[in-house]
């Protein structure tokens, strides 16, 4: 199962891939396509990736989290055409200790946003289209 996929993300399936009887705490994060961006209504969007690097960077981030905490991590980022409300990214961290599960889950989503080469082209209700630049916009989930 690759980290980058053009299929809908299934949180339950991703969670099952890391859940185990010795890991009693499972923390997850879903990032959904929001219906607004910088005050404009978003109709739909397209995610694209630098695929080989995105896979490599996701693998590095997961390895880092699994080295730093006693945790099993699953991660997927969706690309292609997404609708408002669709999940764009899913992270699951399972651990015997919920401190580790929460810390690893948070680390992974922060690093994904900071490091994984993915871009987002948004189609707005007013007919305009734009590549999203989060560095020019303080509002993000």
């Amino acid at each position, binding site marked *: 199962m690759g980290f980058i996929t053009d299929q809908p993300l299934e949180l339950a399936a991703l969670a099952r891939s890391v859940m185990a009887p010795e890991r009693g705490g499972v923390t997850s994060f879903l990032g959904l396509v929001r219906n607004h961006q910088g005050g404009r209504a978003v109709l739909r969007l397209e995610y694209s990736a630098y695929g080989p690097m*995105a896979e*490599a960077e996701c693998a590095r981030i997961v390895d880092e989290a699994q080295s730093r905490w006693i945790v099993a991590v699953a991660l997927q980022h969706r690309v292609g055409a997404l609708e408002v409300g669709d999940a764009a990214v899913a992270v699951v961290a399972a651990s015997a200790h919920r401190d580790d599960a929460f810390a690893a889950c948070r680390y992974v989503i922060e690093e994904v946003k900071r490091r994984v080469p993915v*871009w987002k*082209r948004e189609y707005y209700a007013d007919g305009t289209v734009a590549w999203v630049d*989060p560095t*020019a916009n303080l509002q993000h989930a």
Partner: protein
Amino acid sequence: MLAASHATLTVHVLLFASYADILGVESVDVTMPAPATVGAVVAHLRALPGGNQLPPKPLCARNLAHAGVDDAVADGDELAVLPPLAGG
């Protein structure tokens, strides 16, 4: 051979998203005098038509890993110039 200053290297440059729009291409091979840095390749790209819309110090990746503008490039490297990331 007389001098290393005559040596060149060729880097396979990839452009994405808004940067591909700016330069009108998604990939281009750049041949430069060796040795060269990531920043030197970017300077070369900024001299192409439309290239002045690229920032002087964009996010770059060399052979699938993030790289700084002062990092060296080698012949045959893949150098990706990355617009602001918007994943997650």
